[in-house]
C-alpha cells in the first residue's frame, strides 16, 4: 500500500511496508530485508528521541537504501539460492530466472552505491515508488528542475555501471 499523498506521520508502522520494499528490491531475500527493517526501526527510534525527521519518508528511504547497500556489499556474490541450515529456498519461477534477478540486483545495487544520497533517492522514488517528479520535489524539498537533473545524472551513472552487462549479453 502506498503512502504517497498521505500526510507524513511519525509512526514507523506507516512506512514499514515501504522500508521492507526498498530493502527487498536491493537484497532479494525476505530475511535480509527484515534485518534491514529492524535496523532502520532502531535508528528511527534513536532519531525520534531527539527530533522526528521533517521529511520522514525521505529520511527512511535514504537510510534504508544506504543500509541495504552495506548489507549487499557484505554479502558479496553469495549464491542466489537461499541455503540456510538444511533448507533450500527458491524464490522465483525457475532457477535461471532466480540467478538472473540476483545478478541484476547485485549490479543495480552496486550502481546505486555510486550515486549521491539525493540522486539515489530520486531514482528509487521515480523507478520503484512510481512517484511523479513534482511529488519527489515536494517530499525531498527540492526544486522540480533539480529533481529532473538528479534523475538524468543518476540514470546515466547506472547506465555506465550496467554497460558491461549488456555488452556481455549481446551476441558478437
Amino acid at each position, binding site marked *: 500500500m502506498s503512502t504517497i499523498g498521505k500526510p507524513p506521520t511519525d509512526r514507523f*508502522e506507516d512506512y514499514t511496508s515501504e522500508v521492507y520494499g526498498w530493502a527487498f528490491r536491493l537484497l532479494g531475500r525476505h530475511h535480509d530485508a527484515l534485518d534491514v527493517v529492524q535496523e532502520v526501526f532502531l535508528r528511527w527510534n534513536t532519531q525520534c528521541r531527539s527530533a522526528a525527521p521533517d521529511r520522514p519518508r525521505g529520511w527512511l528511504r535514504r537510510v534504508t537504501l544506504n543500509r541495504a547497500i552495506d548489507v549487499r556489499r557484505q554479502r558479496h556474490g553469495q549464491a542466489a539460492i537461499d541455503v540456510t541450515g*538444511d533448507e*533450500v529456498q*527458491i524464490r522465483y519461477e525457475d532457477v*535461471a530466472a532466480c*540467478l538472473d534477478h540476483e545478478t541484476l540486483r547485485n549490479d*543495480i545495487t552496486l550502481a546505486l552505491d555510486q550515486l549521491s544520497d539525493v540522486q539515489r533517492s530520486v531514482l528509487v522514488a521515480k523507478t520503484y515508488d512510481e512517484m511523479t517528479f513534482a511529488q519527489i520535489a515536494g517530499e525531498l524539498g527540492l526544486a522540480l528542475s533539480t529533481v529532473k537533473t538528479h534523475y538524468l545524472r543518476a540514470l546515466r551513472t547506472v*547506465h555506465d555501471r550496467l554497460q558491461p552487462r549488456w555488452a556481455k549479453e549481446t551476441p558478437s
Partner: protein
Amino acid sequence: MNCETFESLMADALGDELAPGQHPAFDEHLAACTTCRQEFESLRATAATMHSLPGPQRVTVRREGSRLVLEERSDHQLRLDASHQKPSTAASSPLKILRYAAGLLIAFTGGYGFHAVIMARDAIRTAETIVQADKQDDGETSLQGSIVQAHSRKPKRSDLAKCLIAMSARKR
C-alpha cells in the same frame, strides 16, 4: 526543437510525464537526431532494466508490544509455479542454466574475492548434504531429470540442490 530543448524534456519523457502537446516535436527530434536518439535510448533501456527487477511480495505489518512483526502474506507464497513453463523450457533449461552459471562465474571472479567463494562453498556443501540424504530415499536421478523436476510445481530439495551444485561446478 533543438538538442538543448530535447535534453530539457528528456527526464519528463523517460519518466512518462511528457505533456501530450510536447510529444510531436519531441518525437520528431528523436527521429532526426542520432546523438540525442542514442542518449535517449540508452537511458530508456537503463530505466526499463531497473524497472524489471522484481519487488517484494506483500507483507503484513503488525505491532506486538514494542516489536514490529512482518509477515509474508500467504496468498503470495513464494513457490515454483509450473504455469510459467512452456513445453520447450525444460529442454532449453540446461543451456539457460549454463548461461547464468557463466554469468555467476564472471560475478565471482570479477573482484568479489575470496569471501564470496567461501560463502558459495558453504552453500554447495549444504546442497551436497541434501542430495546425499535424499539419495538414500529414492536412488540417484540425472542432472537433466533434476533440472526438469526443479521446474515442476513441487520440486524436491535435492533437485534444486543438484542444480546448484551443477552451477557451481561450471563456475570452478
